[in-house]
């Protein structure tokens, strides 16, 4: 009898969370990376807050993307190396749901902390306090979408040599719409304007991602494991 897909997903999610908390330092790395990247810009560009404010949306979102790419390495590689992923694929349960669970936990562990910590970096870049809620909301949605599309590229590069650099190259085209709308939402929030429109588009991308990305990721993983 086949276990309901949702229970399988929950099992996988709980396993991933438990494993992740055994190595808390690994959890912090993407977050620290993001904060460092955000700090580098004022150091290298200009200390003038007004100019930094203009650059802030781009800096924050590129930083979020880079941090997400760093974290994606952890998504599949360890499980692929010790054979767990293969067991998932052979188990007869829905690989799509299992990978969706892995992607969600990945987002909970990397995207959510990043979105919540972003005000620190944003403040340093001159972003007004009023814009912070909008920034957090946009980053939550955007990082979720990035985790979803990143799962596809992570799956594709499983069988590749030196997959890390390739992973970044492959993730970029899929991430561009997320970056464009996310930065637009942040820009409008900073200016005090209504940012609902880009948020809806981000939401649409996330929904599209939820429905299609796990399928594509599962197909990619199966190909990579052959």
């Amino acid at each position, binding site marked *: 009898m086949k276990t309901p897909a949702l229970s399988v997903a929950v099992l996988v999610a709980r396993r991933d969370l438990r494993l992740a908390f055994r190595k808390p330092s690994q959890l912090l790395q993407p977050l620290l990376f993001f904060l460092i990247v955000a700090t580098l810009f004022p150091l290298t560009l200009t200390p003038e807050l007004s100019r930094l404010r203009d650059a802030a949306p781009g800096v924050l979102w590129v930083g979020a993307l880079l941090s997400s790419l760093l974290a994606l390495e952890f998504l599949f590689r360890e499980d692929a190396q010790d054979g767990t992923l293969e067991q998932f694929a052979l188990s007869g349960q829905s690989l799509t749901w299992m990978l969706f669970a892995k992607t969600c936990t990945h987002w909970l562990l990397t995207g959510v902390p990043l979105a919540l910590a972003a005000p620190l970096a944003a403040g340093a870049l001159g972003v007004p306090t009023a814009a912070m809620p909008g920034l957090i909301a946009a980053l939550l949605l955007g990082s979720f979408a990035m985790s979803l599309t990143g799962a*596809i590229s992570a799956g*594709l*590069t499983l*069988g*590749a*040599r*030196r*997959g890390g650099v*390739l992973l970044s*190259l*492959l993730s*970029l*085209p*899929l991430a*561009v*719409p997320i970056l*464009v709308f996310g930065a637009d939402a942040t820009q409008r929030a900073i200016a005090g304007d209504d940012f609902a429109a880009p948020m809806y588009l981000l939401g649409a991308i996330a929904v599209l991602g939820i429905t299609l990305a796990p399928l*594509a990721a599962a*197909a*990619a993983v199966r*190909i*990579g494991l*052959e």
Partner: protein
Amino acid sequence: MNWVWFHRFGSPPWVYGFARRWAPWIGAAAAIAMGIALYGGLVLAPPDYQQKDAFRIVYVHAPSAMLSLAIYSTMAVAAAVGLIWRMKVAHAAAAACAPIGAWFTVATLGTGMLWGKPMWGTYWAWDPRLTSELVLLFLYLGYMGLRAAIEDPVKADKASALLAIVGIVNVPIIKYSVNWWNSLHQPATRLIGEADMGKGMVWPLLLMFLAFTLYFAAVFLVRLRAELLRRERTASWIREALT
């Protein structure tokens, strides 16, 4: 309906022979068409009212753009056919498309930049169409990079096929971005009908589209032969094909 012609396309030796026979003729037709179109566009067509002679860049820019999108679509369809029906020929076709498509994306971006400078005052603008065309280049490069990075040829075929299919979402974005957003890049000019480009300006452009399509077919068939040879390691037909 007679499906024999379809099944022939699944047979590597038949496709190899077909490519060998037809490529030269298609190439010759492309060269002639291109020559006439170039003459029509550079010499015969009258200067534009607003852009004077700068508009002539359209005769290389638009066909390049068309190819960059059409080749990617062809590649994605071939990839899908290869994945679904497990046809080696389809995977070979997708692989053959990629370098050509990438180069014509470069051509589109380059000619676009050279046209943008006199017309808009800038070589580049981060508007939707230009940005998504750049993203298309990254997709081509990522596709070729993924192929190169995976050692097992069958795995490489399948993984890159999946990437090509996922990337197809970019093509409609490029095409319709000028309609969906306020863009620096002008929307499509109506080619036929009233209030379009002047009469002497249209036919060289249409002929160039045809010429580029024929050219792609010819170059594609040459690359396809190479890809088929690489995939058919020990098959007996190769011995005869190489003589």
